[in-house]
Every structure is written in structure tokens, then in C-alpha cells.
């Protein structure tokens, strides 16, 4: 049985207009992701990976084509509606961690659900930070944390709002091999625990291999798509991950 795609990208193109002329970055991209699956976008620098990620997350609008996220056609939504959609369904992990420097680790994690007015934000954030192994560093500021720790805080922040889909842009790009391995394990464990769809942009062949689907871009076009993964039975879900969805939420 085919599940409803959480993300549907149809004939998307993106062209930037600069003083030097038009610069096409993406050309007629189409694919869809099923809920709960993992997908890696790979390709050389300048192939349009990050641009595609931005369009899929509703951070930017395509020049043509259509992106549908969780049943919402993004091109029909206002900026504010897109923000609400991101807050409700989307999580992000960035290459440069992108923690707010003036907020402690705990406060960084709390922000997404505080925005919704969640009363239990502090409890959930502490819980999640403990799961990623940072229970002792709640009140540290980003500058006081190592790169790996910062990325773990970013993971906790991404998962606290229980997103339906998580976009990760080169999540290990700024980390050493050992830390990268730990962060990737944590990312996949959280994905499995929460049933979140995972779309990650990476240069790392090994990381890409851990996903169910690999889309290869070159020159703004899909040159290879390993195709959607076979559907798993619910019994195949793993439950050892720290990001398991709490029963009371």
C-alpha cells in the first residue's frame, strides 16, 4: 500500500536574477517523500542541494513548480502561515549549528514550543537535553559548548516540537569524524523514535548510505534517484532511541 507523501515536489525550478543575468540553480525537480522515511540529497558543491532544502522547507519560493508539505501547497501560503507551518511540522539541523548565542542550551531548545505557548516547555527541554547527554550543561551558552555538543543541542531543539519532517543541512560538515559518527547515530535514533521524516543534505557518502533513499543532484537537476524505500511494517520500528515521542503529548 502506498502512503500519502509528506513532501511532494513537482517540476520545481529556481532561478536567481543577478546583475550579471539569470542564474538557474534548480531545473524541473520532481520527487516525493513518504512519511517516516529518510532521504539524502547528495551532489557536488553548487549543484543546488541547499537551495532545494530551503524550497522544501518553505524558506524560499520556487520560480516555478509546486511544493506540497503535509498536504499544504506552500505557494498558496503567506509568510506568516509558512512560519506557523514550520513551527508545527518542520525541524531543522544546520551545518553551523545555528544556536542563538545569547540563549543557554536549555533556552535554545525551549524556543520552538515556547513560541506555541506550551506551558511544559522547560520540562520537555530538560528531558530532551538529558536524552542527548547534555543534562549537565543546561545552562551553558553555545560559546561554552564544543561543536559536537552544540549540534546535539540543535538536534534536541529540532525534535522538541515533534516535527513531521526534519531537514538537516550537512549536519556533520563542521565536526570531526568521531563526533560526526555520534551525532549521526543520535539523529537517526531520534528519527526512528519520533517517526519523523528525515531529509538530509550531505557530502558524506557513509552518511548518505544510512538513508533509505539517495537523490543525486548535478547542475540543478536530479541525475540519480534510488527511489522510494519499500514500506516497512510497524513492527520493524526501533524503539531504543532517546527521542521517542512522550505519551502525554
Amino acid at each position, binding site marked *: 500500500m502506498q502512503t500519502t507523501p509528506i513532501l511532494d515536489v513537482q517540476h520545481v525550478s529556481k532561478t536567481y536574477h543577478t546583475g550579471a543575468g539569470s542564474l538557474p540553480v534548480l531545473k524541473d525537480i520532481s520527487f516525493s517523500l513518504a512519511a517516516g522515511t529518510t532521504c539524502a540529497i547528495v551532489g557536488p558543491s553548487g549543484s543546488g542541494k*541547499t537551495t532545494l*532544502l*530551503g524550497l522544501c*522547507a518553505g*524558506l*524560499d519560493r520556487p520560480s516555478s513548480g509546486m511544493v506540497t508539505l503535509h498536504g499544504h501547497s506552500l505557494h498558496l501560503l503567506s*509568510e*506568516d502561515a509558512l*512560519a*506557523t507551518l*514550520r*513551527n*508545527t511540522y*518542520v525541524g*531543522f539541523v*544546520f551545518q553551523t549549528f*545555528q*544556536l*542563538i*548565542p*545569547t*540563549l543557554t542550551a536549555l*533556552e535554545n531548545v525551549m*524556543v*520552538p514550543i*515556547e*513560541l*506555541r*505557548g*506550551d*506551558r511544559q516547555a522547560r520540562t520537555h527541554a530538560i528531558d530532551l537535553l538529558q536524552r542527548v547527554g547534555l543534562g549537565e550543561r543546561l545552562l551553558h551558552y553555545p*560559546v561554552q559548548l564544543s561543536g559536537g555538543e552544540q549540534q546535539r543541542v540543535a538536534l534536541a*531543539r529540532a525534535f522538541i*516540537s515533534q516535527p513531521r519532517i526534519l531537514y538537516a*543541512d550537512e549536519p556533520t560538515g563542521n565536526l570531526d569524524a568521531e563526533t560526526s559518527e555520534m551525532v549521526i547515530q543520535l539523529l537517526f535514533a531520534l528519527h526512528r523514535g519520533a517517526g519523523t521524516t528525515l531529509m538530509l543534505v550531505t557530502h558524506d557518502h557513509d552518511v548518505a548510505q544510512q538513508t533509505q533513499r539517495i537523490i543525486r543532484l548535478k547542475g540543478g537537476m536530479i541525475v540519480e534517484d534510488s527511489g522510494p524505500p519499500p514500506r516497512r511494517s510497524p513492527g520493524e520500528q526501533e524503539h531504543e532511541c532517546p527521542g521517542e515521542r512522550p505519551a502525554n503529548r
Partner: protein
Amino acid sequence: MSARESGQRTVNAGQARRVLWLWKMAWRDSRGGRKRLLLAIAAISVGVAAFIAITAFDANVRDAVHTQAKSLLGADLVLSSRQPFAPETEALLATLGGEQSREMSCTSMAYFPKSAASRLVQVRALEGSFPYYGTLETEPPSAASAFRTGLQAVVDDGLLLQFDAQAGDTIKIGTLTFSIAGRLKKIPGEAVAAALIKPRVYMPLAALQQTELLHKGSMVTYKVYLKLPAEVDADTLLETLHPHLSTYRLTGETARQRAASVGRVMTHLSRFLHLVGFIAVLLGGIGVASALQVYIKDKLNTVAILRCIGARASQALAVYVLQATVLGAIGAMVGGAGSLAVQTYLPRLLHDFLPVTMPLAMAWPAVLRGLSIGVGLVVLFALLPLLSVRRVTPLLALRAAYGERQPDGRDLWRWGVLLLLVGSICAFAFIHTERWTYGVGFCAALGVTFGLLTMVAKLLMRLVSTLSISAWPYVWRQGLANLHRPQNQTLVLVLALGLGTFLLTALSLTQQTLLHHVSLANTSGQPNLILFDIQSDQRDNVATLVRSYGLSVLQQVPFVTIRLVSIKGRSTVELRAEKQNKIPEWALLWEYRVTYREHLLDTETLIAGAWQSHVAHPDAVVPVSLEEEIAHTLDVGLGDALIFDVQGVPITTTVGSLRRVDWQRMQPNVFVLFPAGVLEPAPQFHVLVTRAPSPDLSAAVQRAVVQQFPNVSAIDLTLILQTIDAIVQKVTFAIRFMALFSIAAGVMVLTSVVLTSRAQRIRESVLLRTLGASRAQIRQILVIEYLFLGAFAAVPGLLLAVLASWALATFLFEAAFVPAVLPFVVAFLLVSALTVSAGMLGSRGVTTRPPLDVLRREM
């Protein structure tokens, strides 16, 4: 509770939590930026302190004028005349009842035997218990009553200080020598500054008759002060007296009228100070806008992250607007606290100009008004840079290159805020100026000032950027390049410091121009000493005395005192009674001192009609020549008839010609000039014009004249210069005090700008040091940058100062502008030194931070 109500409560609670989050986020996000914003707060605090102090001062003055209304006049009603009260007038006064005091005042020379020095003073001879309300403040206090009997006088404090005299010494007025009973500190309803022009000497009325100062034609003012019975309303009484006032050539004033007129003057003063203080608030606002512009550039990434994780643009904006509002509120409150100090100092500063005793009270409504204006302006100024938060794309979190979308000129919000800001400034100006045209003038002047400063700053930046300096040493090139690099604060600093430089230098230049203009009259050959009130029988003897000191008599001019009886066939009594009459009362009641001669002087130019030098038949209609301004005031032109009363004899004249008179030359000029052949038989006094080559000789001649001819008065150019200097000093000191707030706000802006760009400087310094630059080189770069920045700020400020003081000199004072070099050089050096000092002080540690420490943080 219904399900609907329950749902509504949940929604409300959710909204409340979201608002709470905004406050929390604003607080958390401000960490690390609070110190940087501290000086921006200081800039606005300085402005608000000045503004609140003036607002409170204004409120306290109004209150004081209201509560001290009666002591402003010292009586319920005062009636005055320029001629002795006729028997009919005395009869009228007798019917008014109540308590009455009489005063006669005139101008005379006072001679201090102890120091053998003399000076022109205003003699006030008093009889009765005036003042009935308030007190004559004297030292010792008993002198206020002691002088009323015998040959005693109280003398203005400043005059006694000038001649090193004290109570117990003597002063000679006319032919009488008085014992000085005490120092006169304050007279009800009169500002101390009034004594700068004519110091006052009080003596008993009975003694005045014995001084032999009063001759035919002497200019004396006669006053009667009335304390009316409680049941009589002074204003109603004055209204009923109105027809008699015209007939008896009297003018009247009640305590309420005096309070209203003093209130008007005080309102003008406080309005003016408000405008000067407002400039400090505006500068503070500019400082806040500039500090927030740098601050918000550092926050763009945070905004992008917030947008990525679901914050709406409006929520992100609200976080920073809240920060700005709290910043403004703290700044305004600190300013409010600081204003307490200014509030206690301001009345002391303006003491000499205040005719009321100022209470030391907190004017809370004024404080609140000042606070809200301060916060409002901060928010409006802050919105200009903060609006860019709305345009931050969440894509920035993915890739720094996406950056902020630049405003394309169609951002209606930005235009809206600008409009609101300009509107608020104009509204403020309109409220605080007498007429809307003045408000427009203030706004236009402000616009031109800001516009010119901006233009010059941009021009200088462009000049530096296009300057071919490739051959210059590296540190010079780098220092200059810093002035036009991205995120430079050159424009803001030019505005902040340039405005302060402009205000202070313009004041100095205007002061110099005025003094120089007056001293110009002292050029070789020009008269600089005038002796007046010489009686006909003293004329030759005074001339002989003057010549005996080796001085030549340049002119001897006869003067006749006359009054206007009718203008164009309508009597002055009739005109005064008329409500539509536009001729001012003073011009109708004025005792005109006129002269007669056959020729015009070199200070006079005929502008209309023909000058007739001689009248053959004294009974014919006399063609007189009128000074152009008095002709305009009296609303007469060529051919119009004027009847004058020449000491009881009516003389019919016609306006035969109009003259333009150069009043700034030290000559016995007159409004009305008669041809020869008419006034010769009339009672007259004479004026002698001479030139004393040195102040010492001038003083010696004056001493001799006063001793031999006590009724003769003297005025010399040195005295005029001293008086103008003293007044200008006092006025400019008060203005300078307010302008200092603008300077202080400018310095705060400078320091806050230096500190907000500190992080950028540290990064640059580290990069340069990593690439091999020495600390000395980096320090040189900083000194060069700040030196040029100071110079950039000073130059347009100085140019504007020249422009403004030239305009003031040419259009207001009608004097030739004197470009004094010293204030120019001092201002230039001061602003440059100040900028370099603040810059280097704020950049401490920039060259000492270990490069690795910074690079690690950046990576």
C-alpha cells in the same frame, strides 16, 4: 462553563503565554548586548534630562507667576505718566482710596566719592510703603525701610560690587550726597538682569527735589502704586478709569496684567529653551538609532533562526521593539532622575532673568510628559533600523550569502515611521513656538541643518573614497578607508558632533560679531562720549570744561522735549480710546526729544520728500523730517499733519521728508527733526558730543562734569560695550548651558558608536596582526580614523556656524559679520581631540586581545 467559554479561555491563555514569551525572548536575547546599549541609553538620558528639567522649570515658573502675581507688581494697580500729575489727576487719584505710594524715576549720574568713579544710573525716588506685596530684598534687610527717611539710598548690588562700595559708604546723586543704607538684591517683579542696563538707586522722594536733577525737559516717570481695599477689583477699576487715563495721559497696569505679561515673557523663554533641549533629545534618538543599527546587524542570524523555527516576522520584530522600548524607558527614567539635578540648577542659572522666586518643587505632570516624549522618540528612532528585522529571510540561517533583503524604497512601513517621526518633530515644534510660522521655521532650520550635515558628510566620504592615495603609507590608507567601509558610522557621528559644534561655535561667532560691531564705533575720529541734560546756562561752561581736558567739542546739539497732540487731525486722546487704533500706546504718549538744524548729518539719509532747512515764519505749518521707522509706527506719510505740544505751545507740522538713520553710530540722533527757525525760543537742554582718546581720560572728564554739573549725565562707548558684553555673556551662558546637553548627547553617541563597532574592530585588528601588522600600526590606524572623523564632524558644523551667524548678523542684528578665527580653531581642535580621545578610550584592548582567542570564537 460552556465549551465555547472554556475554548475562549484556552485561546486567551495561549495568547498570554505567547506575549510572555516575547518578553522572555527580548530579555534573553539582550544578554551580551546590554553593555553595548548602555551608552545609547546615556545619550537619550542626557537629552531627556535636559528636556524634563525644562518642562518642569516651565511648569514651576507658571505656578510661581500665578501664586506671586501680586508681588510681581508690588501693588494692586499702578498708574504712570511721563509728566507731573496735574491737579485734576491728583483729584482723580484721591477718589481711588486705598493705600498709595509715589515714585519718580529718572536717569542720572551717580558718583562714588570713595572710588572717585561715576556711572549712569536709574534713580527711583519713593514715598510710601511700596511694595505692598512681596519685598524689596536688601542687605541688610533693614535697609529696605531705612532708606525711606533722611539722606539714605539703597543701591544695586552689582553697582556696589563694580565700584567696591558697601553699606555705610556714600553716593552722590545730583547735588546731594547720600549714605548707602544697603545693597539692593531684588525688586518684586523685576529681573536682576535689568540692572545690567541701568543700575537702580532708591532714595526718598522728598530728597529728589533737593538733588537739582529736575529741570524743564527732564525725562521723568511719575508713578503711583495703589493697594486697593479688599472689595475693589483692580481690573474692573482700571476699566472704569480708562476714559480718564486718555485724558490725563496716564497708563495703568494691574497685578493680573503684569502677571500675564510676565507669563508671556517666561513662556517665550521656556519655549526657546525647550527647542534647544529638544535638539539634545533628537541627538539622543539619532544615537539610539545608530547603536541599534549596528546591534541589529549582529542579530540578523538570530532572527533568521527564529524565523526558521517558526517565529513570524512580526514576532521577531516585536522582540526587538520591546528591547528598544525598555531601553527608551530606562534611558528616560535615568534622564528623569538626572533632571532633578538640572532642575535645581536651572533656576539658579536663569536667576537673573526671572522676575519671580522659583519654588523647588517636583512638577510630576511635566516629568511624566518628558518621560513619554523620550520613550516615544526612542521607539520611533529605533523602528527605523529595527524594521529591517521584518525583511530577514530565514534562508540566512542556511547560507549567510542570502543576507537581508534590501529595502527597495517601496517599504510603506519605513515611510510610515519616517512620516510619524517627522510629524512628531514638527508637532513638537508647533506646540513650543508662538506662531505656526516659527514652528515651520524651526523644522525647516532643523531640516536644513541635518540636510547640510548629511550632504557634507557624504561628500567628504565620497572624496576620501575617490582620493588617489595609493602612494600614502599603509596606515593612512587603512585609517581613511575605515571612514567609508560598510557599516561605517561616519554620517551619524558627523550629525551628532557636527550639530553640537555648530550650536556652540555659532553662539561664539555671534557674540564676537556683536561686540566687534559695537567696538567699531570706537574708530579714530568717531565720537565716543556724550554728555546730556546740559541746561542752556551750563552750555558754554561744560564745553570749556571738556576743552580743558584737551578734548574737542565735536557737536553741541539743542534738544526740546515735545509731545504728540494729534495725528492726521485726530487727537491722541481720541486715538487711545479707539479700539481699532493700531498705533502703539507708547508712541502716542512718548515724550519726543527733538532737535532743529539746517542740515542733515552723515548718519542720516533722505529717503522721501525734500528737506527744508529753515522756516521763515514761525506761525506757518512746519515741514518736519521723520525717521522712517517712527513714521511707520505712527502710520503717517509725506504731507500728513502732526500737531505737537511744545511745553504748552501747540505747533502744527506736516511730514515734509522721511530719513533713514544709522542708529548704531554714536550720535545724538532723533525721530523728529525740525528745521531751524521754530524751536529756538522753546525751553531746551543740550547734548555735547566729544571723543576721549583713552578710557582713563573719558572717566576723568565724566568725574569732573558730575562734580561741577551734577544734573549733567554722561554715557560713553565703554559703558555701552560693557553693558552689551554683560548681557550677551549672561544670555549666551544660558543658551550654552542648554547647548552643552547637545554636546554631551553627541559625545555619548560617539562613545556608544565606538563601543558598538568594537567587535568589528577587534576582528579587523586580529586579522591585521595575524597578517603581520604591529600594535603600533593598528593604533596609528585608529588615531588616523578618529582624527579624520573628528575633522569631518567639525568642518560641516563650523561651516553651518558661519552660515547661521552670518545670517543672524545680517538679517537680525543688521551688522557686518566678523569671521573670528579663534572660536573656529578652538572648536576644530576640541572636536578632533574629543573624537580621538573617545575613540582610543573605547578601543582599549583592541590591540591586546590574543589573535587565537578571537579566531577560535570566529571559527
